């Protein structure tokens, strides 16, 4: 009886905690759906009887949030795809070939993950300024600059994670493929890539989220090209002293959170086991 009572107590506590933790998200969606007058009411109520999509419409039309959503999506998807390609090739080189300096490279990949990338805003700002003179699309004020830096930040971890997956594919498979007359190229993309694909999921999600959430680099690089801003920055543009359109801000926040949330729920199991694996190795 004592046992059951204590379990009941624990379960009640778990539900209360879950409600408190989820409350800010509930409040975000609720505010986005409330009619304007209720949002700025002096006594806010935790429900609404007249839900409306007005705030979403306002965010998407007046503030052209759709444009920024698209920009964020372009950056994040480009980072994921390029990251996949580059880290897969690099991980293959590091696991299936022996060459001089291989161990040094591996250690460097580990060390570089410990550098706080935020400290690099200043030099990277100047790097991007120089890049602008050579290839404008990848320089300041263009989405390419964001793709480049997030690609660089995500590579060390992605390569490190993929190494394990590539190593798990038996070498005999490549020998068999070679005997069957497959070229290196065909082996790489038609045999190895599909086998390693599960390992690519966790790293892709992490690089997507980093690129999608980034505020600091978007703020530093996209200084005078409003049409090239990404979501985190665009959201800040709505915030004006004393006259915030909270309905539209919360609608924007909702639009920004949903893709990440869906991603998290889809891959949560793989993400946690992938992270645990990375911690262990």
């Amino acid at each position, binding site marked *: 009886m004592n046992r059951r009572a204590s379990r009941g107590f624990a379960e009640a506590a*778990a539900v209360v905690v*879950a409600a408190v933790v989820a409350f800010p998200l509930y*409040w975000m969606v609720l505010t986005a759906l409330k009619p304007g007058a209720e949002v700025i009411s002096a006594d806010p109520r935790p429900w609404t009887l007249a839900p409306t999509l007005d705030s979403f419409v306002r965010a998407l039309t007046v503030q052209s949030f759709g444009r920024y959503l698209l920009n964020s999506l372009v950056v994040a998807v480009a980072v994921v795809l390029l990251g996949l390609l580059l880290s897969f090739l690099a991980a293959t080189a590091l696991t299936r070939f022996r060459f001089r300096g291989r161990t040094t490279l591996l250690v460097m990949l580990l060390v570089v993950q410990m550098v706080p990338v935020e400290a690099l805003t200043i030099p990277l700002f100047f790097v991007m300024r120089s890049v602008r003179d050579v290839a404008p699309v990848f320089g300041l004020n263009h989405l390419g600059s964001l793709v480049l830096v997030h690609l660089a930040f995500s590579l060390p971890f992605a390569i490190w994670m993929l190494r394990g997956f590539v190593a798990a594919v038996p070498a005999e498979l490549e020998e068999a493929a070679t005997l069957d007359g497959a070229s290196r190229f065909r082996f790489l993309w038609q045999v190895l890539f599909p086998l390693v694909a599960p390992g690519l999921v966790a790293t892709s999600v992490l690089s997507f989220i980093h690129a999608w959430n980034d505020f600091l680099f978007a703020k530093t690089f996209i200084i005078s090209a409003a049409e090239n801003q990404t979501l985190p920055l665009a959201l800040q543009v709505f915030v004006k002293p004393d006259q915030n359109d909270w309905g539209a801000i919360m609608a924007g926040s909702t639009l920004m959170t949903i893709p990440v949330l869906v991603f998290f729920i889809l891959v949560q199991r793989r993400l946690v086991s992938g992270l645990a694996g990375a911690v262990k190795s």
Partner: protein
Amino acid sequence: MTTTARKGDGRVASAYLAPALLVLVGLMGYPIYQLVLISLFDYGQEQVSGGAPLTFLGLGNYTTLLSDARFWDVLAQTVGFAAVCVAGTLLVGAVLAVLATRVRTWARTTLFLAALGAWATPAVAGSTIWLFLFDANFGFVNEVLGTTGLSWTYDKWTAFGLVAAQVIWCSFPFVMVTLYAGIKAIPGEVLEAAALDGASTAGTATKVILPLLRPLLIVVTIQSIIWDFKVFTQIYIMTNGGGIAGRNLVLNVYAYQQAFAASEYGLGASIGVVMTVLLLLVTLGYLRALRRSGEAL
């Protein structure tokens, strides 16, 4: 795991590695070198636009920094803020991880789903939501507490507290999930043996479970220190760039403001170097702690 050597292996390997290395050298290696270099110069607006020659200061920026009372204030604030965030994150995460082992699946799933939501929320969106919840006039929290009109972001300490609460909210899920997995991984026989030996619940917790979880606890602690020491987005958004007269600054935001608001790029870079060195020291301590606790790398 290596295939038998084939002709041209070396060339193939370098071709596979080249793209990734090019990106990493250009956008990580070179900027690290540049960060140190810029921190050794008087690098302001005139120098950037080419209007004035560069002056080499050697360690000049560092002596300026270390003799500036403001820097020590910000450093102390950063350490204090990070300490509160780390302690809060670990406490909440650990308590909830234990709670999760004591409930049936439905309650655990509810708890984990809520935590997943907080974890997944982008920092910018999360900060904005919390600001609105604690808004002076339209915020729900003031409504519940009956303190309508109270500005949480005006006072230095309530502002720091609010940001810390937001940081804990979005970072405890990582600790909770990791520790929960760690507790679940302890074999049932170990706990049964402890019970057979007459150990109490508290005794089992401190003498059996805690030592087994030690390596994992070290990992999440250090990870939290590294994250919370360099919080940028939350402070920047919730205190509007570091608070009134910069009283809510932390190192990361301070470096940014010095460089991009005051155009003191050299000074900003030196703050970045100091931050990097401090974090590398933490990481070094991390590796040593891991080795001492018997974990192979």
